[in-house]
């Protein structure tokens, strides 16, 4: 069987997802053996233009990005959004909720005008995305499973259920039930991370995006019960899910 040709590309992001791939350990060597990595700027000087599967990391946040990602889409058979930035615009979208000129000025002062910057968007705002590997950063195990599924010609499994499922499976004390409670987005967030955050005692911040049918009304009831103000609530949603429909 011919090895699938794979490329990695990054847009606006911290490149933590590609680094996660580079940190697969022994499995990284298996990956390099099983697929033909033709483009991986972070790890290689070789830049092949002939690829079938494109893993795309990062958000669209400059006008130049739009042309570049369209080019990639033209060449690739399968485009996979890698990580929150590509999937739901990630933390990049936080700036969308500020005054845009102000944002630029805060960082670049008088020269703000010189910098190309548009509202941060997930890549599916510009191109058709075949599959998504959610997370900030992606989960190593999930990446491998998805990569294997795709090279096997199978639609990868991404859980539809909530983070609470995985959190409970691990037997964690729910962070809402601790002596110093923390509010957690687990009940409405898509699982697949193995409840990484609550498992070490912190809140799920929703980096994998919401489940397909989140009950936001019920969720807001829970937040209210814990004395979370409307402002707090919005900031919470706007860690990762500011762009999600239904969040008011």
């Amino acid at each position, binding site marked *: 069987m011919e090895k699938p040709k794979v490329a990695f590309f990054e847009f606006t992001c911290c490149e933590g997802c590609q680094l996660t791939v580079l940190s697969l350990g022994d499995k990284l060597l298996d990956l390099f053996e*099983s697929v033909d990595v033709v483009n991986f700027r972070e790890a290689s000087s070789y830049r092949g233009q002939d690829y079938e599967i494109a893993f795309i990391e990062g958000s669209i946040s400059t006008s130049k990005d739009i042309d570049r990602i369209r080019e990639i889409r033209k060449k690739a058979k399968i485009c996979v959004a890698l990580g929150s930035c590509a999937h739901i615009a990630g933390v990049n979208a936080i700036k969308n909720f500020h005054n845009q000129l102000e944002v630029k000025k805060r960082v670049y002062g008088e020269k703000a005008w010189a910098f190309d910057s548009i509202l941060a968007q997930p890549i599916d705002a510009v191109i058709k995305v075949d599959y998504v590997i959610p997370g900030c950063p992606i989960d190593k195990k999930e990446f491998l499973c998805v990569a294997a599924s795709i090279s096997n010609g199978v639609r990868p499994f991404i859980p539809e259920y909530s983070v609470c499922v995985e*959190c409970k499976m691990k037997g964690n004390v729910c962070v809402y039930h601790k002596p110093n409670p923390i509010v957690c987005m687990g009940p409405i967030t898509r699982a697949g991370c193995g409840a990484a955050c609550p498992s070490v005692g912190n809140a799920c911040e929703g980096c994998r995006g919401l489940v397909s049918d989140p009950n936001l009304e019920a969720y807001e009831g829970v937040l209210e019960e814990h004395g979370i103000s409307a402002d707090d609530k919005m900031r919470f949603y706007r860690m990762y899910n500011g762009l999600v429909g239904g969040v008011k």
Partner: protein
Amino acid sequence: MKSYLVSKGDFLELIDGMIENGKEVVAPVKQENQANFKRIKSTKDILWSGPQTVISPKGFVFPQEEELIEYEVEDGIWVGSKVEAKSTVLLGIHPCDINGIALLDKVFAEKNLDENYLKKRESATIIGVECLTPCSPESFCYRKGSVLPWDGFDLFLTDVGDDFFVEVGSEAGKTLISGISRKTIQSDAKKLKKIREKRDNLFAKKQRKLKPKLEELPKLLKENYDSPIWDERGAKCFGCGSCNMVCPTCYCFDVRDCVEINLKKGSRSRFWDGCMLTDFTRIASGEIFREERGARLRHRTNRKDFYLFEKWGRTFCTGCGRCGKACLTKIVDPLDIENELYGRKGRR
């Protein structure tokens, strides 16, 4: 079966000796402000009473994730079934959880034997312990007739002071304590009876009441199939599945494949699943047979106290109260639901 008396010191020594000899002993240990079942290094770690474990011990016989088959596809195909079982002592198991396992025993041994479960189950020694105080404000085991084990234990301990009063549920259990036990005499039985009377009184006072009669629950739920309560409560449900995961008697599972990146080796595993989850009944055409969360809540409740109750003659909710605690929107507690149904009905 027979009962014996074993001094606590002897018993703990026995267990510690087993641990030293490499035996896997699992018991509840403290975890922050709650508890969990873990492999212990010494009996000192055991939490004999106090906060309940977050999830039931069912995972030790029916793991969260378990490989069922494995295969290789290099020149030809090879498939093997995978049944793993390692001899384990489950120690300090409360009656609600012993009963949970006893129910799973029935289910997995029905018709098509589930060897993955049964082998693990055979390799497990269950040493239960009687609860003398309620473990959480949510529990209602007394109301479900589940303060004592129905079946499914090897030994069952009751703290009677310096000794454990030990009920023996299997030959293996009997052998285990043969060196340190002495037969009980009438006064011991009397003492036990007293302790249990006191316990009953305490539980009757502390635990929330179940208004309908236990044996009438199937009928109550049947009559209330179309009650508005399901949608009322369902409106507040996340479909998060927490209530399924923590329950000692939920046993539904999903099965999924995982292939290695080189596509030559793979396995098929089962994972805990839950009827409260959206895709639980979704088929390829996109149809979801229990679309409404209220319908799912009804199904969950009916499984506990109607369908499976009728089928097996025993409630499938042992009253551990975990789901009531786990549910952040406080809608799932079966006792709550049943009381509300009972209140709305008849006694209007």
